[in-house]
């Protein structure tokens, strides 16, 4: 187990380094830096001034060296201009040129400053991540049980009417990306002119104009059922279909196994067979699938946070990318890639751990 784990972690670190380097290159391309110079310096800078701005602010030099500085394995740039003022990567705020550390990259915990939010990147990202964590938590709480129940119910008796109805539902949800289901849910539940809200308002069942809120902006301060149900449902719906189908496939396979037949022939009641014999084996595969759903959830989060204007991690990523906020975008990418890689690792290790055939051999 240990060598396997070490090898996996090794590959993961190599992947993380390669990916962060790729992201670093793509965000620090010359046109991006020129745009940054014009927004940070002055819009009417001449081309020469732009180049010298880039050079003077530590964005010159080779890509590898800059990546090293950002990572914190190469010493940060220091530059003294003709007025005798020394500036550098590690010299900011109260830190003077003399007391500045030599290295200041993400390994030292310095993620740079966001140009959009005008605050340290680490502060922005951690704040927004905690908002998104709530969203993810609720999505998981809805998605996992619902999809497992649907999958088990439809896989239990393959080809039955329940199976057909639930499978159709699962296929329909996998065909509905978040930006489609979000739009449809808002129109049905959160529009003052269409859907069920006008009818309910007419009957006097709801006090406001709409049943649910069409935006989740207020959920940043206080999460309520009415402002959070739609975003959570939008993300969960897409995942439900996929996980349910995987669970169904795994369940139908388990149901054809010899030990299930033996249990049935011994006269064990059907629900006992399902709960005691089938479920434990049928749920190994969905575990992997749920873990591998995380990268896709990240997508869903970006779409839903944009659609419902919930200022979390996904919204921040869009802001960073749209406003050429290089440091923030880099940080967002690192977090995203990290989440993906860690979930892959958990899924691999979890699969080995959960499957007795591999664990005991």
């Amino acid at each position: 187990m240990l060598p396997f784990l070490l090898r996996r972690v090794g590959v993961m670190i190599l992947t993380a380094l390669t990916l962060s380097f790729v992201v670093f290159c793509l965000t620090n391309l010359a046109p991006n830096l020129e745009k940054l110079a014009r927004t940070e310096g002055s819009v009417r800078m001449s081309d020469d001034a732009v180049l010298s701005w880039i050079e003077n602010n530590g964005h010159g030099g080779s890509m590898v060296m800059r990546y090293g500085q950002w990572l914190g394995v190469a010493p940060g740039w220091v530059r003294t201009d003709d007025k005798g003022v020394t500036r550098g990567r590690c010299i900011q705020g109260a830190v003077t040129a003399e007391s500045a550390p030599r290295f200041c990259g993400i390994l030292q915990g310095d993620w740079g400053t966001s140009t959009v939010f005008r605050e340290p990147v680490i502060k922005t990202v951690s704040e927004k991540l905690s908002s998104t964590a709530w969203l993810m938590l609720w999505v998981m709480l809805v998605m996992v049980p619902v999809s497992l129940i649907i999958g088990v119910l439809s896989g239990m008796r393959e080809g039955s009417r329940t199976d057909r109805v639930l499978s159709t539902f699962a296929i329909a949800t996998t065909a509905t990306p978040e930006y489609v289901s979000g739009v449809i849910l808002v129109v049905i539940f959160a529009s003052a002119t269409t859907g069920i809200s006008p009818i309910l308002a007419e009957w006097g069942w709801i006090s406001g104009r709409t049943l649910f809120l069409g935006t989740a902006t207020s959920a940043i301060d206080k999460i309520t059922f009415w402002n959070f149900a739609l975003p959570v449902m939008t993300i969960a719906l897409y995942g439900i279909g996929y996980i349910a189908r995987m669970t169904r496939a795994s369940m139908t396979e388990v149901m054809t196994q010899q030990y299930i037949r033996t249990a049935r022939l011994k006269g064990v009641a059907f629900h006992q067979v399902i709960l005691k014999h089938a479920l434990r084996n049928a749920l190994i595969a969905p575990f992997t699938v749920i873990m591998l759903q995380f990268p896709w959830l990240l997508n869903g989060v970006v779409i839903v946070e944009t659609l419902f204007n919930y200022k979390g991690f996904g919204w921040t990523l869009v802001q960073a990318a749209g406003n050429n906020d290089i440091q923030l975008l880099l940080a967002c990418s690192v977090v995203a890639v990290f989440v993906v890689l860690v979930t892959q690792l958990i899924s691999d290790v979890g699969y080995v751990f959960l499957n007795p055939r591999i664990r005991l051999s």
Partner: protein
Amino acid sequence: MEPLSWPMIFAKMAVQFWPVWAALIVTIVLSLQFRRRLGLYGKLFDSNVGITGFVIVMFWVFTAIFADMIITFNPIAQLSGLKNALPGTPLPDTDQWYLLGGDHLARDVFSRVVMGARRVLTIAPAATVIAFMVGITLGLPAGYFGGKLDTGLSFIANLVLAFPVILLFYLLVTPEIRSTGVPIVLAAVLFLFPVIFVSVLLNSRYFTTPARRNLYVGVALVIGLWAYSGLAFNMDPTGIWSMDPNLLNVFVSVVFVNAPTVFRIVRGIVMDLKSRDYVAAGQTRGEGPWYIMLWEILPNARGPLIVDFCLRIGYTTILLGTLGFFGLGVSPESPDWGSTIDDGRRLLSIYPHPAVVPALALMSLVLGLNLLADGLREESMRD
């Protein structure tokens, strides 16, 4: 004139779609007539799920083909007074209607959705085909030879797969990146694979008869490299093959995202199939590795690949919609479904129709493709 009622709107739309109905009926009647001779395609008509999916998909395919005959207005024409018009609003002084209303720039939603189908259905299948060729060309040797080649290629594939798709799009589909030429480099690499694939395919087949081999491979190379020069570098002297830089950027990114998954699927299947007896028999006969891979293993892997192809077109449609939704790589005039949804969502709670119509269109197309894949899977597993 009076605004139309909902039944009248649907009736008018049904009339507008007449070329689609005609083509659908012809296709289905012919297919049912000859289904016993049509292999897997014919068997599709034995399952209800398959038929439903097929009909939905073909509906959109024919809509894309006959889009010019179906639309009632120019999809980018803005007519005054019809901003956010409700479905069925008549045009003043004419006998025409905005069947599904107008959007925030007073354009006809119905015509835009129909034209959007054409855009989606030209990019999505083409991108999927290229992604498959890349995945197959790399996945076959990786699975067949294994070893260092496999380790290296798998590592690269996993790298791409570890990127959240949306982040990759934000990094790859921007005006800045276009000016650095990264999309052209990507296109140069990715578009080379179809040429390699077809050449190797023909070469391995006709290796024993050099005269025919030279002819076929020569023709394939000439056409392939001609298209390649036009599509990747926009340097086709005749100008037949060319691609708008915006479109190239979107196209290349979508291929880039899809190819690693195809690679993994192909590699997995090949690793499974290479231990079969017919492969061993081929090796004993002294057949070359590429002949075995392309002409013995690949045809036997077609079932799962065809199913995945259908699913992947749907997934690519979703990805294109995502790009449009974030306004990446599309012009504001573009009628593609993703950006229409994005335009419509700003006034969603007051005027839902400009967003809901393309949303339903996209959903039905992907649903059709998923059902089709399901039907194909069911039928291909039966034999």
